[in-house]
């Protein structure tokens, strides 16, 4: 009789609809252009000090320092932007639907509450992914441009100073490691994973808080706890070696089951320094990301499924 019955109802498609909608909603909120604008400025400002630094200083450490600087100045704004945006946009979405009562109209359709939550989160993740991909592209282009300049200067200087081919080649390899590598893409993925975890945390908090501000503040607190819990744990265990009981180890373990341990993400700094990222490290990060996002989404669902509006 109705069209609805002749088409098989696919859950994936419904999730995509909710996610796509959340994505457009966020894109049309101008505040995020503003944030993105800052990140672009931050990355693009790397272009400005090109002339002074591409002279003879480009040889050796100076050239590599320059490349490191670009990476850290790019990944810094990317981290800041993605974490702030992941938290704030998630914290905005739910209270807005409750306040405008648009939530009634959605939940009055045959939409399971889990799909609603997961769809919203996926919309935020899509936004994070797209903006990080754009910034990543910008960073890679910049790095490539500078890298080729640095390599050129190195080669000509090396020859004029009569270095042997092995020395030039080894310097070249060292410099290439500072350019756009797979490890660098891994670091960008790590930035994305961390912001995804933060978005999922913000989702959980916003299911029981009705204010965006509260959600944002608590999420940032958890972000900092995530960064310092490993330090605190190390300090505690090293300081009181004798008194470290099994109980306190379990306590630390269970803390890290609930609060994400962002120590894993220190690999980003290592990549900026030119170290490579092992595949196993990347797999670990991805699994940790999936674990935390799934845990927080399911917890959100538990809170949200009993909620009345």
């Amino acid at each position: 009789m109705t069209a609805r019955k002749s088409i098989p109802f696919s859950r994936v498609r419904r999730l995509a609809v909710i996610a796509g909608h959340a994505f457009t909603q966020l894109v049309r909120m101008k505040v995020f252009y503003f944030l993105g604008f800052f990140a672009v400025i931050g990355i693009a400002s790397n272009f400005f000090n090109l002339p002074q630094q591409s002279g003879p200083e480009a040889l050796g450490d100076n050239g590599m320092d320059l490349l490191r600087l670009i990476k850290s100045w790019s990944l810094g704004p990317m981290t800041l932007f993605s974490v702030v945006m992941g938290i704030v946009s998630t914290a905005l979405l739910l209270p807005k639907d409750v306040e405008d009562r648009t939530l009634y109209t959605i939940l009055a359709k045959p939409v399971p509450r889990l799909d609603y939550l997961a769809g919203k989160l996926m919309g935020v993740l899509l936004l994070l992914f797209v903006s990080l991909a754009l910034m990543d592209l910008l960073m890679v282009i910049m790095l490539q441009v500078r890298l080729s300049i640095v390599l050129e200067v190195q080669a000509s200087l090396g020859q004029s100073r009569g270095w042997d081919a092995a020395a030039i080649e080894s310097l070249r390899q060292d410099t290439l490691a500072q350019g756009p590598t797979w490890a660098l893409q891994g670091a960008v993925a790590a930035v994305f994973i961390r912001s995804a975890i933060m978005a999922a945390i913000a989702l959980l908090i916003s299911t029981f808080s009705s204010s965006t501000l509260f959600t944002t503040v608590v999420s940032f607190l958890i972000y900092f706890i995530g960064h310092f819990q490993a330090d605190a744990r190390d300090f505690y265990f090293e300081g009181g070696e004798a008194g470290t009981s099994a109980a306190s180890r379990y306590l630390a373990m269970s803390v890290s089951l609930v609060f994400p341990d962002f120590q894993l993400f220190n690999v980003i700094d290592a990549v900026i320094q030119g170290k490579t990222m092992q595949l196993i490290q990347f797999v670990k990060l991805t699994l940790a990301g999936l674990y935390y996002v799934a845990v927080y989404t399911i917890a959100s669902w538990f809170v949200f499924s009993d909620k009345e509006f």
Partner: protein
Amino acid sequence: MPAVEIRHLVKDFKTSLKRQPLRAVDDVSITIEAGEVYGLIGPNGSGKSTTMKALLGLVVPTSGTCSIFGKDSLKVDSREDVGFLPENPYFYKHLTGAETLEFYGKLCGLRGAVLKDRVSELLALVDLEGARDRRIAGYSKGMLQRIGLAQALVQEPRLVILDEPTAGVDPLGSRQIRDLILKLRDRGITVFLCSHLLEQVQEVCDQVGIIFKGKIVKSGRLQDLIAIEDQTEIILKDAPPELVAEIEALVKRSGSAEWLRSGKPRTTLERLFLRETSGDES
């Protein structure tokens, strides 16, 4: 199978820790047969919206059960055959009228050409074709109610639930909405609406229930409830005064009935307003 079955619904809301919970709905039972228009009337705060939300699974009953076409309201699939227009609805500001309907249609699994046709059909039904590509942010109250009604109808549900569909809408818009409800009835769609605007309910409903402080105090067929059983009305057009006098004399002579009054019936202010503003002879 009835379209709506609410059995002994009780809903308590926790207010503060100390005070005892507020009983918003107190042992309400309502059965609505398919194809009927049911009006729930009562003052503000009497539990109308809460009853509807329980029926849609938006709040969980403290006790009692609700079902739609036999499916338990607490299950998601009960919502496949129902459309809901909430009180003072508001939609995503960043979407246009057409995008709004597309969004809700997609949530119900519609897509492609079917969805497109459905959206155009609904926009025509609620007379918003002119505002199709305007953002919702610029819609008036009456337009919001109508796009809300269209949204409720998107998957062609057999039941629509309307919470105060005409509240806050000017007489013209309110007339349009009532005409829409009558159109739905003609198509055999069951309508469950609530309102505190009694004359409007009177005009469209087959069945009414009066709710007060969470309890249904009276319910039944509208015609039965409001008919004055021992009176008969005769309305004549262009009757000369002599004829009226003659009829009155006839009635008095017969002795089996009492002549109460005669005079000119008054049009309602609403009808006058509509006639003056739209040239419509209703």
